[in-house]
């Protein structure tokens, strides 16, 4: 059974899984990062406190994070259809995956940026730095190690979600695992795909840790 066709299928599965992980993660950051920054800046102790803005973003991000991914995926089918033209397949999955990732990313970005010592922000303010300068040159740069670590966590989480999406009509390793392991009862192929998923997470984790260490200047 380990013929060329199966190997070909697994390789394609890896490609699809990576596609469904990296594209939504990237898009998730496009939306989630600004939201996370706005959450940090408008917080009560932020550099531009704004209760109303904070409350709204806080509320929306909490709602989306509380909906289990599979349910979110189903709820979003009309939207997915409107954007992609169909509701199944790897490309269609990018829509719900991105929408699941963005609020999660916003929260993680917020927590990373809040780790930055308030004194350093105060020092920048005392030098006459404006909000934009403080965000780009103080918060984002000082928090970069934590941001990279969190990006690693996001990627691994979205990989998990994408495998889940495989069960309901997307491609990728998750779909293969379900099709062979659950429907046809061929546990060997299922185990192989699971092992590959584990390896992918390990590799992502390794790259993330390496990058965060490489960019950290706080060591003596």
């Amino acid at each position, binding site marked *: 059974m380990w013929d060329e066709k199966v190997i070909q299928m697994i390789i394609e599965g890896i490609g699809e899984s990576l596609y469904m992980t990296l594209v939504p993660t990237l898009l998730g950051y496009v939306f989630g990062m600004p939201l996370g920054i706005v959450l940090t800046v408008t917080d009560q102790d932020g550099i531009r406190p704004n209760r109303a803005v904070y409350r709204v973003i806080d509320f929306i991000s909490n709602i989306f994070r509380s909906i289990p991914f599979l349910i979110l995926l189903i709820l979003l089918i009309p939207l997915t259809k409107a954007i992609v033209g169909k509701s199944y397949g790897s490309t269609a999955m990018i829509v719900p995956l991105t929408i699941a990732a963005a609020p999660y990313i916003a929260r993680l970005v917020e927590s990373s940026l809040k780790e930055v010592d308030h004194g350093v922000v105060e020092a920048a303010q005392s030098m*006459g730095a404006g909000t934009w300068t403080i965000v780009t040159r103080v918060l984002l740069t000082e928090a970069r190690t934590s941001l990279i670590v969190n990006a690693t966590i996001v990627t691994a989480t979205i990989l998990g979600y994408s495998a889940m999406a495989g069960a309901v009509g997307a491609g990728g390793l998750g779909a293969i695992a379900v099709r062979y392991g659950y429907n046809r009862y061929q546990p060997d192929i299922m185990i192989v795909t699971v092992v590959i998923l584990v390896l992918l997470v390990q590799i992502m984790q390794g790259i993330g840790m390496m990058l965060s260490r490489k960019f950290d200047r706080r060591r003596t």
Partner: protein
Amino acid sequence: MEPIIRVVHLNKQFRGKDMEVQALSDVSLDINKGDIYGIIGMSGAGKSTLVRCLNFLERPTDGSVYVEGKDLASLTEKQLREERKNIGMIFQHFNLLMQRSVIDNVCFPMEIAGMKRAEARKKALDYLKIVGLEEKAQAYPAQLSGGQKQRVAIARVLASDPKILLCDEATSALDPQTTKSILQLLKEINQKYGITIVVITHEMAVVQEICSHVAIIDKGHLVEHGTVEEIFQAPKSREARKLIYQGCEKVAEMKGRRCVRIVFSENSSFEPVIGNMVLAFKTPVNILYANTRDLDGVAKGEMILQLPEDTIVADKMIAYLQSAKLAVEELKDYV
């Protein structure tokens, strides 16, 4: 001369959930150009809040702050940011950007001002030279000692070419020797570049080391202010006395009750006043404490004497000391 900083009836309240804290009550203060002005008080007295009102990192609840005649409250956000470039600040915990090298930290204010990178780097090296750290330009803050970090912070402040420098407990995290060298550096900066310096501290020693003027703040109130010499020689408020006598340890096993504190100025230290007095009255006095302190370049001796139990002799001794042109002050309940 128009004072460079003028604080008028300043009030600051912090509103908590169900209580209000009055951090500053009706503080008025003038700081002249070229002064090194100490603001001293116990922790929680409101001195950090006061210094943050001087560059509007905290907005006062009431009252005004004028910097070079400009009312800070009347400025727009943008004008205020521009004004802050004239008012540098250094901090107890240095507050350097940990992910930037030393030279990039010094470049930061010049980046904010929109200076070209090459020019900023060149200037940054000059500023690092002033603080004696040019060989650490490529290092990162985590690799430096506390004193070195504060020197980087000082170089960074100089890079915005300020007229005023606010120091918020700038030496409180440093050991005594490093404190001395940082204070020396601040003094140099004050003299060389004419930068007015405001020093927030809880240590009298810091004030004595570099300040020309001092304000004493207690529970949000300004209790006393003047030149360091005046306050040191004749502290009027209880709080001032408490701070000045910080170093004077009490000696146990004393029988007399009346004590005086005397201060020698430069001309009075030639005459052996105490020796002559003992000879004149043929009665001994007990020296409980003696010290010389350097107040802005002038050596000041201080002494605490325990007078004889005989009140008549004691009164005469006080008169004798006063006639010798010493500042004499009776201490209540010192022993």
